[in-house]
Structure formats: structure tokens, C-alpha cells
């Protein structure tokens, strides 16, 4: 019963003369364009956008949406992404006109409510991080990484040290080295031990007075908590370096331990993971960062401050790195985060972590017999299974299992990451999934592994499309629709 007509490209549905918006007539005396604008800057005609009625557009997008899986429709065990339930109340409240209809340059006395909330956001994040100073400005996790590294660079410049390297474990997410490179650092990869943890010896070897920052993800991308984390931080600090904690995995430690307490100097949060703000099929997220006292002066401006006369934006901060985007940050996202934090409170937040870790360990316990988990007997909020044996014995790859899961009504785990696990399937259930769902997921994998390999090679079978030719897409990129 799919409507194939409505999902034709907008451009193919365009009919000259159609329109989806009517604007009011001009209520001021209208003057000829040529009087108002220099001729050479004027276009002959409006851009060749498609021409559609409002019903066309609505039906198009409603149908398109149905070609997606999403958290609201399916279990979405995408490792490293913390695809938890996105509470509807947060969307409703963050969209109140008293928030969504505010201009960033309004007079400060007309903004006391939102500034109070953003101040509260700074305070709450500082407490969760165990780090006193927060900037809400970065727009996503990677942006937070970049910002913090720029802060680190400014700090070292300010104290007169020339430090040029950033050390990064091989299991780290790609944004870590990319951010460090953008910030002007040289990257030194640190290998993992056979247990999947930071190799202290290797780390020690690379630590020197060139070391600016060690970027660590904890629990790491294998879902393992670094038991030596305090030691690692000490080692780095000893050579004068800083610790950056990639906070993508905060869902595993809220209320249990705090980055600032185990030695981190800087970290980012991913509210679109940990704090349930919707991912929107690729953002917007936010990437607020928290840093230690000594790094606070370098944070981007402005920062929300409380004074006797009310809240205001402070941008008189001479050591600040400046700014990494316009205005204050992804405020709409941050408000949803505030709602989330206020809904949970201290106990609730710790329960988030406990339930997330419980769910992950339950899945791990049930799956490890059929899909081996090479690193760790237990895990934190996620784990990485391997289809390497299946690949060897039955020629079934991680990707094929992932694809076949779609047929069974589950989104796929993250595949082929981290790189040190062969045929990796990175599975993160989050705390908002029920045991019943986890059981159904295990049964689906059990059934899949009993299916003929050919069925898997050709999977998925029930999705709107079968497997796309990605090679063709990259070889001769078609990146926009064009009239023939």
C-alpha cells in the first residue's frame, strides 16, 4: 500500500504555476525594483525551485518519513549513539513561543527566563562532569572536541608552552583525530592492549613535553571502563599534558563517577545521546564542554552569569578563545536537555546509568553464546560482538546480520567500528528499552543465524529498497537532481 507517486522527487512533481505559500499583499507603497536595486545585481527571475501546492508537499514528506526507521518506531541498538527514547514533553516545552520566538540580540531584561535555564544548564553539567566551568556553545560532540582543543592550545600558549601533539587511542571515534588535526595538532595513535584497554606502556613511551592532550573515551568504544583511568590521567599530568574525555559514553557513568574526579581536564557532552534530545536523522545536537578551573578563562564567549540584578551574557573575557559559532549555541537542544535533567534529578540520572548498564549486560549475556564478544566478560552501557567466526565458517558478515535485522523489525547495530574488532557489531540498548524488546532482539538474531546464508547475502528483503550500490554512488557522484 505504499504511495509511490508521492515520493517522486519534489522536482519531478513540480508544475509551473503551482504554489504552496501565499504571502500578504504589500501594505506599504510599492516601488519599482529598478528604483531600489542596482540592475546588475538583480536576477532576471527567481531561482528555479520546484512549484508545488501545500497538499503535494505534505503528502510527499509524510510518505517519505515512512521510509525511515526511527526510535519512535523501532528498537535502535546503534552502538556509540545512545538512541534512547526522546521524551515528548521536552519537545513541547522547548517549543513554547516564550523560548522559540526569542531573538538572540533582544535586550537582556526580556530574556531572564531563558538565561536562568541556560545558567542552570551550565551548573548541572558542571556537577555531572565534576568540572567547574562550562560552555554551552559547541553545536555537537565533534564541535565540542575542537573547541576544547582550541581551549587547550590557548592555555598552553598563554602559559608559554609549545605543545604540539595529541595522543589518541586506536579505538577512538574518528572525530577525535579529525578535531585535533583541525585545531592544528599532530596526532599520535596509542594502541590498545589485548584486553581492549589503553596500553600504558605505549602511552608512557609517547608522553613527553610535546604532549598537549591525551584524548580518551571512557568507557571506551568497546564498552569497557578503563580501570587504569586515574593512573592514565596522572601519567599525562606528570608530563604537563591535559586529559580530554570524549563524553559520548556518559550514559555509563552518571552519578557513578565523574570525569573531573578521575582526572579529566576537559570533556564534551552529547545531549543528543546521553540527554535524549532527538537526533533528527543527523542533528541538530549540541556539544557543551566542561573544563577545569585553570582552563575556564579560555572557554568561548559568551557565558551566562548570574548577577545581583539578574542573568546576563558575559563576553568580557579577555583570555577567551573567542567563539566557535554565532550566538549562544543550539539553545533549542539545550532546553530539551534541561527538561531531561530536571525530569530525572540525581537519583533518576543514576538510575539511567544503572538501567542502561543492566540492559547492555543482559543482552551481552544472552548473545555472547551465538555472537562472541572478544573484549570483556561484562560491559558498561554497550558492547562489541564479532561475526568473525561466522564469516569464516559460514561466510556471513556483520553487515549481513545487520541488514537482515532490518527485515525482522530492528534497526541495525553499528558495524565495523571500532576497527580493532573484526566483523564488529557494536550494540547499545539504552535504558529505555524493555526486557521484552531485548528478548525479541535476541530471538531475531537466533533465527537469523539459523537462516540460509543466501537469504542473508541478499538481505534486506522487506525494506523499501534492497541493497544500494555504494560503489557506483561514489565513483560517479550524482549529488543533485538535474533536468535531462
Amino acid at each position, binding site marked *: 500500500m505504499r504511495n509511490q507517486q508521492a515520493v517522486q522527487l*519534489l522536482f519531478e512533481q513540480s508544475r509551473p504555476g503551482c*504554489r*504552496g505559500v501565499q*504571502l500578504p499583499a504589500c501594505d506599504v507603497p510599492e*516601488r519599482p525594483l529598478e528604483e*531600489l536595486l*542596482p540592475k*546588475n*545585481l*538583480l536576477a532576471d527571475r*527567481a531561482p528555479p525551485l*520546484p*512549484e508545488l501546492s501545500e497538499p503535494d508537499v*505534505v503528502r510527499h514528506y509524510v510518505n517519505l518519513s515512512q521510509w*525511515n526507521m526511527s526510535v519512535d518506531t523501532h528498537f535502535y541498538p546503534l552502538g556509540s549513539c545512545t*538512541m*534512547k527514547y526522546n521524551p515528548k514533553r521536552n519537545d513541547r*516545552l522547548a517549543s513554547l*513561543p*516564550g523560548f522559540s*520566538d*526569542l531573538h538572540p540580540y*533582544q*535586550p537582556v531584561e*526580556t530574556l531572564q*527566563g*531563558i538565561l536562568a535555564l541556560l545558567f542552570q544548564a551550565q551548573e548541572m553539567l558542571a556537577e555531572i562532569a565534576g568540572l567547574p566551568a562550562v560552555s554551552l556553545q559547541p553545536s*555537537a560532540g565533534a*564541535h565540542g572536541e575542537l573547541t576544547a582543543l*582550541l581551549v587547550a*592550545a590557548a592555555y598552553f600558549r598563554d602559559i608559554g608552552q609549545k605543545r604540539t601533539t595529541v595522543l589518541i587511542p586506536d579505538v577512538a*571515534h*574518528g*572525530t577525535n583525530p579529525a578535531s585535533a588535526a*583541525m585545531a592544528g595538532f599532530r596526532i599520535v595513535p596509542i594502541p590498545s592492549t589485548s584486553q581492549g584497554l589503553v596500553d600504558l606502556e605505549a602511552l608512557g613511551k609517547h608522553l613527553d613535553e610535546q604532549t598537549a592532550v591525551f584524548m580518551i573515551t571512557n568507557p571506551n568504544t568497546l564498552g569497557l571502563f578503563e*580501570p587504569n583511568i586515574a593512573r592514565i590521567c596522572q601519567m599525562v599530568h606528570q608530563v604537563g599534558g591535559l586529559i580530554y574525555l570524549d563524553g559520548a559514553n556518559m550514559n555509563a557513568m552518571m552519578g557513578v*563517577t565523574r570525569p573531573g574526579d578521575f582526572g579529566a581536564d576537559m570533556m564534551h557532552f552529547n545531549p543528543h545521546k546521553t540527554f535524549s534530545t*532527538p537526533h533528527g*536523522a*543527523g*542533528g*541538530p545536537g549540541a556539544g557543551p564542554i566542561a573544563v577545569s578551573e585553570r582552563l575556564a578563562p579560555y572557554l568561548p564567549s559568551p557565558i551566562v552569569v548570574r548577577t545581583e540584578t539578574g542573568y546576563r551574557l558575559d563576553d568580557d573575557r579577555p583570555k577567551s*578563545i573567542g567563539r566557535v559559532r*554565532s*550566538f549562544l*549555541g543550539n539553545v533549542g537542544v539545550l532546553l530539551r536537555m534541561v527538561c531531561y535533567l530536571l525530569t530525572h534529578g*540525581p*537519583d533518576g*540520572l543514576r538510575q539511567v546509568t544503572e538501567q542502561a548498564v543492566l540492559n547492555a*549486560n543482559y543482552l551481552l549475556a544472552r548473545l555472547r553464546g551465538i555472537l562472541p564478544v572478544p573484549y570483556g566478560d561484562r560491559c558498561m552501557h554497550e558492547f562489541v560482538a564479532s561475526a568473525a567466526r561466522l564469516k569464516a565458517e559460514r561466510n556471513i558478515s556483520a553487515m549481513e546480520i545487520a541488514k537482515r535485522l532490518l527485515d525482522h523489525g530492528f*534497526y*541495525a547495530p553499528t558495524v565495523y567500528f571500532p576497527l580493532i574488532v573484526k566483523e564488529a557489531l557494536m550494540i547499545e540498548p539504552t535504558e529505555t528499552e*524493555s*526486557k521484552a524488546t531485548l528478548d525479541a532482539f535476541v530471538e531475531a538474531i537466533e533465527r537469523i543465524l539459523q537462516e540460509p546464508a543466501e537469504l542473508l547475502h541478499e538481505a534486506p528483503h522487506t525494506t523499501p*529498497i*534492497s541493497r*544500494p550500490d*555504494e560503489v557506483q554512488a561514489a565513483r560517479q557522484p*550524482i*549529488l543533485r537532481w538535474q533536468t535531462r
Partner: protein
Amino acid sequence: MTYFPNTPADQQEMLRVIGVRSVEELFATVPEAIRLRRPLKLPSAMSELELTQYMSQQSARNRPAGQTACFLGAGSYDHFIPAAVDFLASRSEFYTAYTPYQPEASQGSLQAFFEYQTLITQLTGMEVSNASLYDGASAVAEAVLMAMAATGRQGRVVTAANVHPECRQTLATYLANLPTEILSLPTPAGTIRAEDLTGVLNEQTACVVFQHPNFFGCLEEADKLVKVAHTAGALAVVVFDPISLGLLQRPGDYGADIAVAEGQCLGIPMSFGGPYLGLLACRESLVRRMPGRLVGQTTDRQGRRCWVLTLQTREQHIRREKATSNICTNQGLMALRASIYLALMGPAGLREAANLCLQKTRYALDLITRTGRWQTPFARPVFKEFVIRRPGVDVDRLVSTAAQQGLFVGVPLGRWYPDLADSLLVAVTEKRTQAEIDHWADVLASP
């Protein structure tokens, strides 16, 4: 907790299967020494009813533009947003999906982003658009990094005082640890003089970044500036206003190499500054230097047309430190909003919106200067924004008093331009009625 579906009985059963006695045991790898021994110091949990009351109270302590005629712009604009945009963008399947890593289960988003890329190329006249960046300012920085990589020139980047100050600040921050010099041309007359530009370009100059209409609302001689840049072997990076393209020549029409913009005006609420949308489009030849995601067309095993994320070898998750950018999560939902907005507006709607902005802006500017109390420091054609000055006036007080009268009269420029401390930047969108503009002029012109 209403978000946790597992009951105590479920939890017991799960612990049994795992083979532990308590959840506590699962945290065995977290060393005792670093455990938090107290509850987090956070406000205690609120029920939905309490949260609703709390947030509503905080919201009532702000004064939104809906209650106040808003003449503020400077990068964030009070344009009209059709209800269908909000409605469609809040569809669960778009809203709560992740980045479309599994194309078979993500064709909805992928097609929408492919359409977005196409719409942006149609809008700008450029050949390629990515699938979004964080915002306009970071898009400027990314464009400059891209230009540096493409030209192989690291020495200098040229921009101008009339480019949004926050874009220039962002750029400076991004380049802080690179050897690159950022040269910002003064623009005392409001626009860039082509001669001035020629004077500062050298063979180490990667690009020229100019804004058109510029931060003061004036139109630049865009085609000339592009030519000057090209003559020096530099790329031309133009920062445009998407709505203005309903009337003005497009960046692609006048030869820009990279076109970037803040996309907020395309159906995205002002939301106190974010989330917004960074647009970035360029020539085809630069595509492999592009930051951000790209969606490409291909076919499935049955030969049906479909879409996938492509050219991922530019991206951090494949190329790591050699990626064109570190961006991962981008602004997908905002790109969706912009697409829906553009699809609804179409060429006619966009042109009308641009014309309404232009006409009302000129009406307002003429009205206020005719009072004699305010003058414009820049005698240049404007589109939807302009600067007015009243020597000696206390602009900040004026702005506060007017806000109490239900008017956001303009953005004071003193914070960025000390010599414009007596000036306001005023924006007039299609939403402003004649009555509001007349009221605005009355308030501003009152002694």
C-alpha cells in the same frame, strides 16, 4: 521513572541471566577510588506536570517576538514559518532517527537530504551542496579551511569589517593555531571598495570572504569582488542571505567558488540563536574538499533509484585526522525544515517574500530618515536591513525603553563597532506591517 520499561521483577530476572546479584556488581570495573560517594547535586526530579509549570513560568519571564514587533536581524530573522514546516519536521520517523547509516531503512531522510542538496544548488546557482553544517559562522570557517586546502595557500585570508562580526570571530578562533593571517578590510562607506581589496591580495591569499548583502544590509558589488579575488588566484567565498536570492543574482551567477549562509531564515525559528543551519555550496571541482555529509543517488539490486551517504572518504569516520572536517552530527532536521520551506515557497513565494522585505525595508528607512532625527551612515542600496545613527543618543537605553513599549527597535552596533556606538542595525521582514513600522518610527523619532 516513566521512561524505564523494566519492572523490579524484570530486573531480577536479568541479573539472574547475567549471573550477578546486584546492579552494583556490574560496575566492578569502576575503581573504588574514583567512585562518587554522594548523590549528584541536582534539582530533585520533577513530574511532567511540575516540569510543565516550571518551564511555562520561565518562558513567561521572556518576551518573545510574537508579543513584540521585532526589528532585530544581524543574522537571525523574524520571518514567517508556515505551519506545515513544523508539522512535517516533527514526524517521528525523521525526528527520532539517527544519521542514515543503513540506507535501506533510511530512504526517507536520504531522499530528503538529496532534495535539500538540490534545492540549495537551485537556490544558489552553485553546482554542489553538502547536507548541512552547524550554522552560518562555522560554515564560513569551514569554507575558508576548504579554500586553503584547495588552493594550497595558507598565508592569508582576506575579509572585511562588514562581514558579520561573529563570523569573523569564529573564523579567527578556528584559525588561531594555524600560521594564517586574517586581514579584515575596513569599510567606512558601508561596502568594500574593489580597489582596497586588490591592494591586500597576494599570492599567499587563499580566499576572499565577503558578505552580500553585508552585515550593514548594503549590497556589495559582488561580481566585481569575485573577479578581483580570481585575478589574484584566490577563491571567492560569499556569505549570502537565502531570502535575498528571490531577487538578487545568485552566487553561482556571479562566479563565487564557495557560497555559505546562515539558513535560519528558511523556516527555522529564532530560538535565541540555535539550532540553526549552515549552508555550504561550491563548484563541482571542489567537491572532494567539502566538509560535511553528502548524499548521492545510486540504484539498488533491483535497479531502483535510491540514495546513500557518499564520498565518505572525505569524512572523519573513514579518514580520521586526514578528513576534510571533523563534523559528524550535523543539522539534519534543520536541513529538512529548509527543504520543506523552500518546497512550499517555490520561486514565486521566495520572490514575493524578498520583495516584501525590500519594499518594507525601504519604506522604514525613508520614513525614519525623513524625520530628520536619524540618518544613515551608508548611502548604499539595502535589501532587508540598514544602519541608522542618531548622534549622541544612548542607544542601549533607547532599546530598553522601546522594548517596554512592545518594540524591539534594532540591534545596537557599539559592541562590535565603537565608532557606531550611536547606531542601530534594523531589519524589516515580510512579517512587519505598515502599522508596526509607523509605530517603530514614532518611537524612534520621539525626542
